[in-house]
């Protein structure tokens, strides 16, 4: 009896469930006790949660990039991958929302940003775009949710209606492309406009955030697709498609590497107080390992080689390793960027020395962060099992055939 219950699937869900329960307890503590139980300070008011927020949104960028590719640039054959990316995107954006709700001091006023507009604020723009894009993602995932067996049997008319949304996919892709281009780059600009922090204050922040999001987003989608196809028969990938896209990621990485290296090297051009110190902090200071090894070597150079060199790209293991590294590298980029700007303290008087501070996330921040990640993994796992989100044999035409098989025939 016990052996029957203890399948890898149930063990996986239990594991995630425990992490989520821990995070729930920590989250309740945060709402009850307030942010004083975190390690955030007036010097470092943005920490781990902001990193989770930024990383989730960046890694959710596969949705808009691939939907644009499929529905706007005519790369129809990648439609099954775009389908996975859309679902991943929905999960990522809800993860970001969870992290933000924890992070703001007055979570019950989250709706204020939708009502009281400050059109000068990058954060206002990001909030509006994220809310609108989350709505687009909900519409885009409706045909996927309609795959739920139980929902089909129970509400056949609803599911056929939800599947019908698929016909508007090109329009949704246009709206999604617009909104994503805005907020993905504006998240970079959120930092880029802060003149008080010279390390951030540069226009290329937007470009870097946008580019790294596209690279990381596509990589994460491909990685989780391949991983689930290895773990369960519910997931089926068309390896030719995945390999082609992985090669494309390899080429994108060249461009990203060029911009990133140029950005880092050009940081010293101005000799602005604080900017060079920021670069030193990143490249020689406490973040040197993160920058050189995680961000640049493992996050960009190694996967670039693995994905462009045919033998390693054909090899599924190395391809998966490369794709995972890209995603991790993007997370490291967000973490390093967010913290470097805050840990280098500018004096209020000209000529005074620049000082440094430090930040380590507290246990409640880590527990809630882990729970948000567990939620994402759990939601994706359920999607693979019950919604066939990774099924490259499922093409548009087949979806329509399934639709005909539903108990209630669709009247044309």
């Amino acid at each position, binding site marked *: 009896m016990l052996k029957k219950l203890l399948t890898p699937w149930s063990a996986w869900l239990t594991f995630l469930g425990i992490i989520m329960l821990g995070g729930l307890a920590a989250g309740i503590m945060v709402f009850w*006790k*307030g*942010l*004083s139980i975190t390690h*955030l300070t*007036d010097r470092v*008011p*943005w920490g781990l949660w902001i990193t989770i927020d930024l990383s989730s949104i960046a890694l959710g960028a596969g949705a808009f990039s691939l939907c644009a590719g499929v529905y706007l640039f005519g790369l129809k054959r990648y439609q099954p991958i775009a389908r996975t990316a859309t679902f991943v995107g929905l999960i990522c954006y809800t993860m970001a929302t969870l992290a933000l709700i924890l*992070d*703001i*001091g*007055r979570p019950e*006023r*989250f709706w*204020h*940003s939708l009502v*009281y*507009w*400050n059109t*000068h*604020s*990058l*954060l*206002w723009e990001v*909030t509006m775009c994220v809310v609108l894009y989350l709505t687009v993602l909900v519409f885009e995932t409706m045909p996927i949710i309609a795959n739920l067996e139980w929902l089909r049997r129970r509400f056949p008319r609803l599911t056929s209606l939800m599947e019908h949304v698929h016909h508007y996919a090109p329009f949704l892709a246009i709206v999604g492309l617009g909104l994503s281009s805005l907020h993905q780059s504006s998240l970079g600009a*959120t930092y880029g*406009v*802060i*003149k*008080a*922090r010279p390390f951030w204050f540069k226009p290329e922040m937007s470009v870097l955030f946008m580019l790294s999001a596209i690279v990381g987003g596509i990589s994460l989608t491909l990685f989780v697709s391949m991983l689930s196809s290895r773990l369960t028969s519910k997931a089926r990938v068309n390896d030719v498609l995945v390999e082609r896209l992985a090669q494309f990621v390899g080429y994108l990485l060249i461009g990203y590497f060029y911009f990133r290296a140029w950005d880092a090297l050009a940081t010293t051009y101005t000799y602005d107080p604080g900017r060079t110190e920021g670069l030193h902090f990143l490249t020689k200071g406490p973040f040197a390992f993160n920058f050189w090894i995680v961000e640049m070597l493992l996050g960009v150079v190694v996967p670039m080689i693995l994905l462009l060199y045919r033998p390693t790209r054909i090899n599924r293991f190395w391809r998966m390793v490369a794709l995972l590294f890209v995603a991790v590298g993007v997370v490291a980029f967000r973490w390093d960027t967010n913290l470097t700007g*805050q840990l280098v303290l*500018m004096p*209020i*008087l*000209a000529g*005074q020395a620049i000082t440094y501070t430090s930040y380590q996330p507290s246990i409640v921040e880590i527990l809630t962060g882990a729970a948000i990640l567990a939620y994402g993994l759990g939601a994706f796992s359920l999607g693979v099992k019950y919604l066939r989100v990774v099924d490259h044999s499922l093409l548009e035409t087949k979806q329509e055939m399934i639709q005909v098989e539903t108990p209630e025939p669709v009247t044309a």
Partner: protein
Amino acid sequence: MTMSNKRTDTMPEGSRPMDKTINRRDFLKLSAVSVAVAAGTRVVTSSKASSAAPKGKHRWAMVIDQSKCVGCEYCTLACQAHNDINPDIQWNRVIEAGKIGNKPVFVPRPCMHCEKAPCVEVCPVKASYYRDDGIVMMDYDRCIGCRYCQIACPYDARSFNWEAFTGENPAVPEWGYPGIERRPRGVPEKCSFCYQTIDRGLALGLTPGVDREATPACVNICPTGARMFGDLNDPESNVSKALRDNPSYRLREDLGTEPRVYYLPAVHTEEA
């Protein structure tokens, strides 16, 4: 008076229900009421002129003479009391900036009330805003607590309420009595140039910077008279005169934030 009804002055609406009652009254009562309304209107309009002055009528500024500042931190203590601030937080911080000869030089740092304030620009919900008299205000009822303003402020002038301030204020009553409500948990707070004192003083026909009852607490308490407060729009105000007659500077002028707090450097008396 709370922050929210400061922003929306409801004089016209306030008089409407009265008009309705007037219609139902006889002539004597009507005349009595109309006299009362007229009197009320005068009081309210004069107070309105202070809190929502036409743009540019006043331009409050502070001048801090570093040659006189001895770093006693009385200003900080008076600020803590008058604004009922958590002892963990300082709206007005006195920073030792170095020494000239053997004499230490201090930079007392309130909020700069920048003309182009980064915190106002970045706030996603307009919880930080400019008053018509240039004071950079916080609407603590609107703020969502995202702390972007803290990220953006070059002067480190904002402190977040990581927890609610519930205990006794050790600065009260020795250094003064609170004139405003305590801020709730989860919002950043900062110096407001004691707007409550300015507004009340103006309503009483006093002049901020001249009459103590209309002047920020830190200016009043300063034992060496290092702080001046006044209206830059008035060429004869003490701040206008001080800035005309002395060399002055502002913090991080390179950022283009146009602070309204000016410093008279410590060296200028030694040179004179």
